[in-house]
């Protein structure tokens, strides 16, 4: 147990000690080596790097240097990432073997290890993270602490204004004032649908009951999205604190966080955060000397995408199959065990403490007319800078993909960007300048979704992509209502036919008809949005569907039955490299002669394409 005064003292002392984390001119002789411990970097051995640093420091008897694990810095493509503070030197693609050199050259001799510096897309070498184009257009609110603090240390969180928002709320504000502040900030749900958060709190508060619940939805099932995971891994206390603020506002004393079991690091860190907060008396009874009490429990998901739907999630917490309930009643009225329940997404919660501390006005000054604040996107796919980006609402897709993301690798062309995962849609090149907010994304047939943003280059077949998403929905449909269970299966069968060259123009019509029916007749968000990937690709890439159906042709190599690889005799110089690499000996022709592909033998693997130095092979 810590008293409020003790917590104030920790904040003051720790803040001074950690000034070098955020201040490059900090007056200190200490150095901190920050090693990213997000899932991406952990997978490429960052725990080993951390251990190595510590070992070498000990061997060399170097004092005043601390090695600290942090959450995700965002630029996962360059991981593992190591940053040395206060000078803020940024080393990328570090291996455990590099530790010795970093310590010797950087720490002991005070020189920079040039070979480990990061090369930006335009070729310039950068010393500092903030100098990268990747960071220039970003604004970090939800991710503010990620990469700055050690997520497993409550004192470090407290140092950077941690639990100050809770203190202010409990001691200076009424629940009504809290709700008014959140409403005035204009914050909307970051889980995808964008329901105004303050309003949701107000409605839940309005229902009278002996028990109410706060639930944090961390069942991030959208494949290719990892925002929530990174927040939980990098700054778990901020989510915990915000859940408590929500509890105070709506009158709940119990909270649950539902996390995917596939995120072991996030689960571990959040559990640790709960334990530490309990130890400090921040969770429990009489919090900060008031009569407010609150407790949080972790519940693990067991791998079902549909559990991201709020009512299915509630069913799952209750220990049942995660099948959505019919709404209304909404969870605000009848949720967990029939009690009023507030469900918000991780990223939504991560914004709450900042709004309380900096004010609603500050928050609502960021973003567009209808969408305030920032949004975190997990940028992935065919783009140079894969990673986590947080941008103000209203940033255009072009800025995200080309300025922040660094454009498309291997000299290919941008074809489409997919937002919203299996519930969203594809955005073609002509809509690249659309500002990102809830409304404009909806207008162009996609949706904000939870924040997955997958970029595709011109080697991707849109019919195949639609098929990929339908495969996902078919396997994840819970089976409760017929339009989704059977309808999506029928759509998938049609798409398979198209990809195998067995389709007809009538199939395109059937796809459209099914899409409308499934959307109108399904009971939950998963079913209602399941046809979106098909509808949006049909809208923008109809010609490609037509080619598959009528001309039996696929311009990419993805539909094997429909593609044909040929060698352009004009360009072929007869070098024979393609022949050498072909795994099935399908390329014929003698030395220095122009080569020809035997179509009967060709398996369309594309190996020859990538090996031809003269770009003579095409499809």
């Amino acid at each position, binding site marked *: 147990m810590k008293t409020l005064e003790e917590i104030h003292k920790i904040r003051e002392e720790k803040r001074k000690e950690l000034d070098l984390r955020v201040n490059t001119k900090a007056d200190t002789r200490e150095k901190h080596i920050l090693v990213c411990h997000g899932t991406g970097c952990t997978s*490429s051995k960052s725990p080993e790097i951390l251990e190595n640093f510590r070992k070498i420091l000990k061997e060399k008897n170097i004092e005043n240097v601390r090695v600290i694990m942090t959450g995700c810095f965002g630029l996962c493509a360059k991981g593992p990432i190591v940053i040395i503070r206060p000078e803020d030197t940024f080393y990328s693609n570090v291996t455990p073997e590099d530790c010795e050199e970093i310590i010797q050259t950087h720490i002991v001799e005070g020189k920079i290890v040039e070979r480990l510096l990061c090369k930006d897309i335009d070729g310039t070498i950068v010393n500092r993270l903030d100098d990268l184009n990747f960071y220039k257009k970003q604004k970090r609110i939800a991710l503010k602490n990620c990469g700055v603090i050690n997520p497993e240390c409550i004192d470090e969180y407290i140092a950077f204004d941690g639990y100050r928002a809770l203190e202010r709320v409990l001691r200076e504000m009424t629940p009504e004032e809290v709700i008014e502040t959140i409403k005035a900030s204009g914050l909307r749900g970051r889980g995808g649908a964008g329901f105004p958060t303050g309003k949701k709190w107000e409605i839940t508060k309005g229902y009278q009951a002996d028990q109410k619940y706060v639930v944090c939805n961390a069942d991030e099932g959208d494949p290719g999205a990892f925002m929530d995971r990174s927040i939980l891994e990098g700054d778990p206390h901020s989510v915990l604190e915000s859940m408590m603020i929500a509890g105070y506002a709506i009158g709940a004393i119990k909270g649950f966080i539902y996390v995917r*079991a596939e995120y072991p690091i996030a689960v571990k860190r959040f559990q640790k955060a709960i334990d530490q907060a309990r130890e400090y008396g921040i969770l429990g009874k009489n919090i900060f000397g008031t009569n407010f009490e609150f407790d949080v429990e972790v519940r693990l998901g067991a791998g079902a995408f549909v559990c991201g739907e709020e009512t299915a999630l509630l069913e799952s917490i209750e220990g049942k199959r995660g099948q959505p309930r019919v709404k209304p009643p909404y969870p605000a009225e009848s949720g967990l065990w029939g009690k009023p329940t507030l469900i918000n997404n991780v990223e939504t919660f991560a914004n709450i403490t900042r709004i309380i501390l900096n004010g609603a006005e500050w928050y609502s000054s960021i973003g567009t007319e209808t969408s305030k604040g920032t949004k975190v996107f997990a940028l*992935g796919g065919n783009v140079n800078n894969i990673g986590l980006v947080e941008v103000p609402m209203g940033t255009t897709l072009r800025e995200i993909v080309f300025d922040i993301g660094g454009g498309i690798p291997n000299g290919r062309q941008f074809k489409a960007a997919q937002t919203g995962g299996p519930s969203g849609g594809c955005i073609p090149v002509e809509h690249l300048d659309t500002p990102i907010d809830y409304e404009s994304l909806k207008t162009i047939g996609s949706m904000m979704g939870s924040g997955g943003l997958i970029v595709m280059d011109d080697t991707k077949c849109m019919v195949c992509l639609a098929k990929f998403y339908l495969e996902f929905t078919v396997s994840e449909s819970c089976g409760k209502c017929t339009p989704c269970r059977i309808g999506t299966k029928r759509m998938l069968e049609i798409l398979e036919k198209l990809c195998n060259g067995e389709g007809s123009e009538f199939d395109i019509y059937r796809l459209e008809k099914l899409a409308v029916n499934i959307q109108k007749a399904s009971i939950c968000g998963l079913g209602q949005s399941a046809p979106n990937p098909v509808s949006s690709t049909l809208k923008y890439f109809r010609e490609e569907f037509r080619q598959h159906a009528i001309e039996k042709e696929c311009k990419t190599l993805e539909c094997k039955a429909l593609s044909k690889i040929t060698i352009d005799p004009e360009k072929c110089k007869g070098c024979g490299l393609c022949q050498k690499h072909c795994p099935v000996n399908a390329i014929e022709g003698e030395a220095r002669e122009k080569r020809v592909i035997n179509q009967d033998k060709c398996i369309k693997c594309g190996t020859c394409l990538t090996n031809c130095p003269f770009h003579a092979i095409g499809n």
Partner: protein
Amino acid sequence: MEEEKKVCQCGCNGRDEFLDKLCEEYKPIKDNLIQMLNEVQEHYGYVPIKAQEVLSEYLKVPMAEIYGVVTFYSRFTLKPKGKYNIAVCLGTACYVKGSQKIMDRLKERLKIEPGETTKDGMFSIEETRCVGACGLAPVFTVNGEVYGKATVQKLDQVLNALSGKEE
């Protein structure tokens, strides 16, 4: 009769230290079913019938309902996994970077489908949706250890190394 009911098919007479401890740890309320199943899955690598029977008895939930829950969630499996469980990420970021090729190669090499285990009990394949290492796409994991920026060649190397280790 009471005694007889507890006898399960595997011949262990329903007694199992792990399950006994599990029942001590959790209160006998229905809400705990998924939490307990998660632990069972973790411990055995699958959800054996005997565990379902014990849970059914303890939580007062019919076997049919437990079976319903076990088959609903993809994390629970009814068959033991192989010594090396290889999971290929088929999330969008990995898909776009060609993870299907890795999966196809894996199926070709091991001659089993996702969800199955090789006859010698060495390997099993699993499809997974996003392990969160999108920066390393495409990825596959072997018993939870992540192999990033995967290629068919890299997969072959890993498979060769794993089968070589056993010989």
